[in-house]
């Protein structure tokens, strides 16, 4: 089947824009800088240099850099959305909702305890790229009022999790519900794309890696996993697995859960998390899951450089660059030895 012009355009743009990303060697050099100022001086890529040049020398901290990196991350995603058209634009509009999900998470966390939060604490998402009114949301009095704002949006299903969140004093049930809704909508949008099977497969693997992090992490911390069971149907649909697979994972011991994954299509993840599972370390699990998914999509993009797998690789690479830069900046501020910084 002939590929449409817009398809060819978006894939070529992804190739073009990928040259603006930091290469592994560049990140490695940044990692080896002696301090935060040297790190800033070396970060001369176009996307960052404009914001970094306005900073006063010697008076920069990792939190400020975090905001700058976050802005570049958002700008890149928005730019890619702007240049896309037709079904790709619809897909990108769904994909970019992960920023909205992140902001919603921050609002929920603050409102659970009635803490103050301002728009400065959120990722700056331009109007038109979010369905939520964050200007209003930051001013609501409690988490119940957040539920009121969720009602007319695609996240209305997550409202049911709010009473549970209140009863266990944690926003985790709502966060998981919002994420499940986000991925289900993203998968719906991906289904209408050309080479949709590969795209949905990548997205499912991303979702599974996050899901695995939550279930193993919660098992390590002996937290109740019942909050997942309420959404096991939606999670199973998102992952294209039977509900029993989800329930078995939730109810089994860590080693048994690893075996269950080994027998599934998500077996690639096991080698990245088995050490963390043995050590019962959430931090290692987090790194393992991120590294595993990074290898997974890099591998796919190499095998399919001329289709949507490459576009997704670009989008994920933008996110991973953001995470790597945050990691290096924080490590530099804390004076951590470069050898101890492990890039994703």
């Amino acid at each position: 089947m002939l590929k449409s012009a817009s398809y060819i355009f978006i894939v070529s743009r992804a190739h073009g824009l990928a040259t603006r990303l930091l290469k592994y060697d560049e990140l490695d050099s940044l990692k080896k800088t002696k301090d935060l100022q040297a790190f800033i001086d070396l970060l001369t890529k176009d996307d960052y240099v404009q914001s970094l040049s306005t900073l006063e020398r010697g008076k920069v901290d990792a939190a400020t850099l975090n905001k700058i990196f976050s802005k570049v991350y958002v700008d890149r995603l928005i730019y890619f959305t702007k240049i896309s058209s037709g079904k790709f634009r619809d897909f990108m509009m769904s994909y970019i909702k992960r920023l909205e999900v992140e902001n919603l998470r921050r609002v929920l966390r603050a409102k659970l305890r009635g803490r103050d939060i301002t728009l400065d604490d959120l990722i700056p998402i331009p109007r038109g790229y979010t369905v939520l009114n964050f200007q209003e949301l930051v001013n609501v009095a409690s988490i119940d009022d957040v539920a009121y704002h969720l009602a007319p949006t695609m996240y209305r299903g997550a409202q049911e999790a709010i009473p549970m969140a209140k009863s266990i004093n944690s926003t985790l049930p709502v966060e998981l519900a919002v994420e499940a809704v986000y991925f289900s909508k993203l998968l719906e949008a991906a289904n209408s794309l050309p080479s949709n099977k590969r795209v949905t497969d990548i997205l499912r693997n991303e979702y599974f890696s996050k899901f695995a992090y939550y279930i193993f992490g919660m098992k390590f911390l002996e937290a109740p996993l019942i909050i997942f069971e309420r959404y096991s149907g939606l999670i199973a649909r998102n992952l294209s697995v039977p509900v029993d697979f989800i329930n078995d994972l939730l109810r089994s011991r860590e080693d048994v859960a690893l075996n269950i994954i080994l027998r599934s299509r998500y077996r690639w993840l096991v080698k990245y998390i088995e050490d963390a599972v043995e050590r019962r370390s959430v931090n290692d699990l987090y790194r393992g899951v991120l590294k595993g998914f990074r290898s997974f999509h890099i591998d796919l993009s190499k095998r399919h450089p001329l289709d949507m797998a490459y576009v997704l690789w670009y989008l994920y690479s933008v996110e991973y660059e953001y995470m790597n830069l945050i990691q290096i900046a924080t490590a530099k501020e804390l004076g951590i030895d470069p050898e101890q910084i492990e890039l994703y």
Partner: protein
Amino acid sequence: MSSIMGVSASRGALLEARKQLQFIKKSTEILEMKRDKVASELNKYLGQLGKREEAEKKIMETYTKFVKALVNVGHEEFTSASMVVSKMKTRLHRHLVMGIEEYDVEIVEPPSVESIPNLVVKEVANEFYKVFMEMLEVAIIENKIEALAYDLMNTARKVNALQKIIIPSYQDLIRYIEERIMEEELSEFVRTKFIVDKKG
């Protein structure tokens, strides 16, 4: 009538001095008992002093984990995840045991580290809270040791002063008064006898 320590050598003064000596001896015994009790309490707590080293080691280990977690998730996520944690509420209780001030810290409301939705942050927060509780226990023990040691020093000084200075001086006083009374009785007897002999 002669006097010592401002006390005249009379029968009344002798009785008063004996009564006071008896009271001082009883007090000394009580203070000795307190000293022994405080010393044994101190010994009991001294064994727990090693907990500080252990707790400090754990703090450093947890700090390393915290740094790793902060590097992994970044400032923004760490701050956002920490927002769900309620403030810890404590109450300080002051007790007086044998005149020694002791303090205990009651955790009225622990910080809700269980609420943290980010599991990496939650893991570190859980460990920090455990280490914090251990350190708090160490601080309470150290405070008790300090109070007990200070009191032991004071009590031992009091017991020594009573045994070496006050009691001997009272014993001297009583002996002196007894001798003076004896002398006065003897001279009275001699004087009476002399008068009787002269009349006879």
